[in-house]
């Protein structure tokens, strides 16, 4: 586990620069939002389920959530086919706040191959540390 300030980032995950994470298991990638992202959002009151079966593209919004009358789009960290959404969040949206790397996962995406995560960052890399440092400064966190 990499800890930066009060935020934790599991070492086994990949990260993008939109505060998303990706857990790779073969060709199946579970995606979610980081502890830092849920802290920025505040209490999440609703998570809209994305349509299963659709293609998603890295960096493109594929689902949305709402906190404090604020609608935010979630961008996918990988390209592929969305094969499962975490339906539990429709009823218990604050799970994203409470357990962002566990029960608060958002969706599972089937990727074509390992190249789908190329360019994503690891928590213990200098590039990720620099990114989070810049974001903490930007958001005063």
């Amino acid at each position: 586990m990499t800890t930066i300030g009060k935020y934790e980032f599991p070492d086994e995950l990949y990260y993008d620069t939109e505060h998303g994470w990706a857990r790779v298991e073969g060709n199946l990638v579970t995606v979610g939002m980081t502890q830092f992202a849920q802290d920025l959002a505040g209490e999440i009151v609703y998570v809209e389920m994305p349509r299963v079966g659709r293609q998603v593209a890295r960096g493109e919004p594929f689902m949305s959530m709402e906190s404090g009358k604020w609608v935010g789009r979630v961008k996918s960290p990988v390209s592929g086919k969305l094969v499962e959404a975490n339906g539990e969040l429709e009823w218990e949206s604050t799970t994203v706040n409470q357990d962002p790397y566990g029960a608060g996962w958002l969706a599972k995406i089937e990727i074509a191959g390992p190249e789908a995560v190329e360019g994503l960052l690891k928590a213990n890399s200098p590039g990720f540390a620099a990114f989070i440092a810049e974001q903490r400064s930007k958001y005063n966190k």
Partner: protein
Amino acid sequence: MQLFHLKHVPWLLSQLIYHAQARLGLEGINILAPSEPYFCIGYHQDLLQEVDVAFCQEHGIPIFRREVGGGAVYLDGNQLFYQLILHKDNPLAQGDKATLYQRFLQPVADAYGDLGVPARYRPINDIVTAEGRKISGNGAATIGDCLVLVGNLIADFDYETMSRVLRVPDEKYRDKVFKSMRENLTTLRRETGHLPAWDEMAFPLIRRFEQVLGPLDTAELPQVVYEQVEILKPQFLSEEWLYKKGRQRPGREVKIASGVNVVQRLHKAPGGLLRATMETDENRLHSVSLSGDFFCYPEDAISQLEAALEGATLEQVQGIVADFYARGGVETPGVTAEDWLRVLLG
């Protein structure tokens, strides 16, 4: 930054303009109002759950689903809208949501002060009078690469139509919504006894926004925005968009102001259906009405329970229900204290 001071525009433009600007990445602030009334629901709401669509159709009230969060609201020309579109890289757009709301709602609160109604920003996204009544509705979204914040100065408000258009389980509930709105949501007209003219509202607001955004240059809305509006129209007017499945809630809940909700919950107990309709104000229950198809002996005992719950905190509810049964002499076959807690506390 550019100011698009558009005054009254056709109702559909009053929403589509900012959706178009955000998609185009064009920063600016709009000051406008709809020429015709309409009903507007939040991005994640479920139309059929929130709105009496048949009533709207019969009375020619258009319905719009915005990409901004928050709840269903009746909008008309007596509300001055501000719509701020900032690129995500703009230094003014930096900060978490609470910071951004405070940054951009403080000038609105100050403008109310200029209009003779001292008001303050109340986290996370409310503006309230000194007495704590809501006097502005606000919402936000990230659309494309832009942050969008929209809200209003409320000169006057049609409480009756608002409560009529909402979908409600029964008239008793509608009456509670109406009374709660009258109590918790106020207007410039109610606070000052005077319906302000457009310029009277617009110019203090513009001045206050300039203190945060810097000098505002009044400009014509670029043609490209109108072209984008035309592109967006089919999508936003489609039934697929309007009837998009939204947030489902068991029972019914209408948010009146921050912390104030009119709630109805249902619970099927072995002895019959229980229904609780009440106003929840932060941590307290008010105007609790209990009904259903259960048996209660003596019949008037339920009204005693209702009276005992008036003003109770959520923590006190369990004790009050326990006392109700502990006193003896009350029988509700197939309905236990636990069942009441399900409808009262959710």
